[in-house]
């Protein structure tokens, strides 16, 4: 069975600085998708960034980028120029290519200090 591990329960960063959130996963599949979701306090979870396993190029979305290391089964999220609005719980998620099921990690709570 696939698993997703986020080893950092909490992280903090100063405004305008860069922070990296870690995620590792375990799978025997070769085709899959990886996601980072953001869950602000009392608000809905929203997709931050996504990556297809067969693509070697790391995904980027404005200030958010990933470091995808397929062999190491690692999928870290880098947030550049952190903003107060980035404070949230961040979930790493995995999905097999041919299923509907998202498998989440336990999340990393990110605090952003002015």
């Amino acid at each position, binding site marked *: 069975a696939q698993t997703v591990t986020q080893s950092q329960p909490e992280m903090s960063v100063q405004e305008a600085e860069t922070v990296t959130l870690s995620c590792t996963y375990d799978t025997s599949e070769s085709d899959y998708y990886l996601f980072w979701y953001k869950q602000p306090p009392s608000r*809905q979870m929203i997709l931050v960034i996504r990556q297809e396993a067969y693509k070697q190029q790391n995904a980027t979305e404005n200030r958010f980028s990933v470091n995808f290391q397929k062999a190491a089964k690692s999928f870290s999220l880098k947030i550049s120029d952190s903003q107060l609005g980035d404070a949230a719980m961040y979930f790493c998620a995995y999905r097999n290519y041919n299923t509907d099921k998202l498998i989440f990690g336990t999340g990393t709570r990110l605090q952003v200090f002015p």
Partner: protein
Amino acid sequence: DAMVIQNPRYQVTQFGKPVTLSCSQTLNHNVMYWYQQKSSQAPKLLFHYYDKDFNNEADTPDNFQSRRPNTSFCFLDIRSPGLGDAAMYLCATSREPIGQGAWNIQYFGAGTRLSVL
């Protein structure tokens, strides 16, 4: 504008008293999901609907049921809530199931936090 709406945001029930959580969507998505998220744990898929086809996860307790009367609404029924069912319940939707669209991005509601007394 909220696209996946969950009501109520907070629900308190008594041990053993049936409770229903609701979810509605304005996205006209075919697929609707229910997740259970316990404190400090990962969200866990309970079941999902593709249109009216119900797909239960193998480890979802029988105490949890779901109904989808139309495209827009989906309900989570907990027949006899126990203390261990206290959690955040997340509803999500996606446009189409796997195989018809590679990404199948899921859109989440803000959740209903259930307390069991």
